[in-house]
Each structure stands twice: as C-alpha cells, then as structure tokens.
C-alpha cells in the first residue's frame, strides 16, 4: 500500500478533499503546518504594527491518504488538478510525497492491509 502526503495551500484543502473522495480513497486526514519551499515568505507585522519582518514559512495543510498501489496514479492526478492554482500553477502550490506502507490495520475489526483501507 502507498501513503500519499500532499502539502497544499490551506485554501485548497476542500477542493483536494473532494477530489480524493471522487477518486475513491477510503480515508484521509488533514493537518496544518508551517512550510517553506520555493515560495517567498510574507511580510508580517512585528513591533506593534509599525515595523515588519519576513516570515519565511507559510501556513500549509498536509493531507495524507493511504491507498492501494493501483490507485496511486489516479489519486496523484486528482490532487494535482485540485491543488494547482490557475492554468500554470504558482509557486507555493505544494508538493506530493509518496512512500511505502508495510501494513494497515483497522482498529475496529482488526482487519488487515488492503481490506482495512
């Protein structure tokens, strides 16, 4: 089984979630992080609003889903479409990390692996 972790813009999370469900994933979870990639940081106020500092890391959300190996490409494709802003995409649109999962167990039943997804 395959774990797909997508770091995306927080405002895109709802679209990505919809895309995942449409793609047929069995589940997912979402969390908020601060991240930095190619994207420049933003200027935020410090010093009570008179001066600013550049904040390198920006708010991002990570959505993680574990899927059967054969769904991998479809899911990645779905995320790419949902997370990309504009035709061309923009810096800060995010990244997808794919890795192997050795086992999955459903807590409720103890079912294992693909049948637990």
């Amino acid at each position, binding site marked *: 089984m395959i774990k797909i972790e997508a770091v995306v813009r927080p405002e895109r999370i709802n679209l990505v979630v919809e895309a995942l469900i449409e793609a047929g994933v069995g589940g997912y979870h979402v969390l908020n992080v601060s991240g930095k990639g190619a994207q420049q940081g933003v200027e935020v106020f*410090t*010093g009570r609003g*008179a001066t600013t500092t550049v904040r390198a890391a920006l708010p991002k959300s990570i959505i993680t889903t574990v899927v059967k190996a054969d769904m991998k490409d479809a899911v990645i494709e779905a995320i790419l479409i949902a997370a990309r802003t504009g035709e061309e995409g923009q810096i800060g649109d995010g990244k997808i990390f794919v890795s192997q999962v050795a086992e999955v167990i459903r807590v409720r039943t103890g079912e294992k692996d693909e049948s637990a997804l």
Partner: protein
Amino acid sequence: MDSGSVAWMLMASALVLFMTPGLAFLYGGLVRGKNVVSTVMYSFVSMGVVSVVWVLWGYSLAFGEGGSFIGNFDYLGFKGVSSTGTDIHGAGTPDMAVAIFQMMFAIITPALITGAIAERFKFTTYLVFLVAWVTFVYVPIAHWVWAGDGWLFELGALDFAGGTVVHINAGIAAVVAAWLVGKRRGVDRGVEPHNVPFVILGAGILWFGWFGFNAGSGLASDGLAISAFLVTNTAAAMALVVWIVLGHIHTGKMSGVGAATGAVAGLVAITPASGFVGPMGAIAIGFGAGVLTFYAVRIRHKIGFDDALEVMAVHGIGGIWGAIATGIFAVGGIGLVNGDAKVLGYNVVAVLATITYSFIVTFVILKILDVIPGLGLRATREAEDAGLDVSLHGERAYVGDGAD
C-alpha cells in the same frame, strides 16, 4: 456629598481597575505562545500586590500632608480616610472614593512597565520589584504632582490624569528594566504577536476603561468630566487613524496590532491634557501622538534595544508629547496657542524631574534586586527557552491536544 459624583467615581474606579486585565490581554497577545501566562500574570498580579501595598502604606505616603516630596504615615491602613467627608482632598467627593480611584492608577502603572521585560523577567523577583517600585518611585512622583503640597503641583505643572506620574514614569522605568534585564534570546528578526484578537480585546478594554481614567480625574460628575470624556475618545480615534495610514504607507497593509497601538498612544497623550483642551486640541494631540509613537517604534526596532512591547515608544514618548502638548493646547488662556508659555515651562520641568527620578531610582532598585541571593532579574536560560509559562507558572496557556 454629591451622590452623582460618588456614582461616577465608583464607576470610574471600576473602569480603571478593569484596564489592568485589559492591559494583560494587550500584552499577552503580543508575545509568543510560550510566554502568555507569564505576560498576563505580570499585570494581573499587580491587582493583588499593589492593592495591598496601597491600603497599608502607599496611599498614606502618596497623599499624606508630609511636605513637598513625600506624604506621611497618617493614613496607614487607610486609618482616618473618610468614606463620607473630604478632609484630605477637599473635593466634593469623599476622601475614600478618591483614594480608591488613585489606587487603580498605582496598580496599572507598574503593570505598564512589564511590556519591556516580557518573556524573560523572573516572576518572583518581579513581585518584590512591584512592592519596591510602587513605594519608592510611583508614590513620591504621585505626591509631587497631585498632592496639595507636592512641589510640582505647587509649581503649577498641569497633569490632569497622569501623563507624568503614570506614562512617562512607566516608560522610563521600562527603559531601565529592559536594559538591565537584557535582550531576549533569538528575537532579532522581531516577534510575531501570537494572538491578535487578544491585542484588540485588550485595546478595547483599555479604551473603555480610559474614560474612567481621564473623565474620572476631575473627581466629580460635571462638565469637566464630560469634556475630558470627549477629548479622550477623540485623541484615541485620531491616533488610531494615523497609525493605520502610516502603516499602509510604509508596508501597504493595515495592521490590527497597529490600530490597537495607535489608539493606546492617543489615549496616553491625551491623558495629561484631558482636563484642559477642547476637541480640536484633542485632534491635534492625537495626530501628533500617532506620528511620534509610530516612528518611535520604528526607530526602536532599528536600534534593536529590547523594550519588548514598546513601552517607551508608546507610553514614554506618548506621555512626553502629551505633557508638552498640554502646555501648547490648553484652553482658558493658559496654553501656548493662547500666547501663554508658563504651563509649557512647568510641564517641561515636571517631565524632566520625572524622567530623572524614575530613571535613577528604578536603576537602583533593580541593581539591588539583581544581587540579592535567591532573586536576580532574569529567568534561567532553560526557562526562557522552554517558555516562562511552563517553567515559572506550571501552566501552558493553551492545551490543544488530547494527550495526557
């Protein structure tokens, strides 16, 4: 005893007391998430410690008839302070009401200082500092300015609601304290406030409470109170507008924290003037306060001196401008705009005296506290790194996770 004035003084006192939790939120929102309880507690605990000090000896030393420089011990433990008559203050309002009102000022003044030392000052030492500073710095200056036999009062310096006693005093003490406790670790790039809504809540409460602060300072429910109320609101509003406009000019954005700071700066500046100027004077004072404090904050950041929450820039500079502006814009023929420079001169004397005295005595107090075994100004490096909340207060401000 006029029941309307009593009602207003009680209410004004409650409002000024409420400013201290307001300040706790203003400051608490500005720090990082690991020092929230600590920052809030610096203010909140003053409501405990200073109230007790004031009842036991503070009021007596501040308002007893002891001469030009300090009161006496006649009213220790509020003995002989009448709740119905007016032996001490000679206002229409009973002495005890005035003494209560003044207590609230003594509570908030040292709390203001803590903005400079936030995120690193040792809490137990701070408690001792509170007692010492109120006794040796606040009380004498309050006597000079407001007691009938105080030397600045007799000189003719005008400080309606505490520009020198409260704001300049706190601003200068903040500089000394920030200097002696030293710079925080790892804040060179500036600290992003961890909770902006708390900052706005704090500013909202301060603005609300400041009506008591200023419009209560005439000690009666009358036209002077009404006028002080109006100019207080007007200066705060004007300075708020100035701050967001300047912020927009410099960065293209309009900071919520900046709006809060502008409002507070306007409130600070109008404080000494609030009994003496009209609405257009208030607009001028608010405008000047906005500009001066905005650039003061920027300069402070360039210098890198770690007055963490800009106490000097906002209260020090704002207060000095207010004291001078009182001399400029006072109506009734006593202000510079009316061709009379006397008050301006007296107020400059008052400002210089306050700066000098506050600087020296705060310095001495902190130097002594620094060497007393078991005290010392600064929390340990570990405590600072992990956050003062967990280290010194045994609490995390927010518990978001389910673990444990």
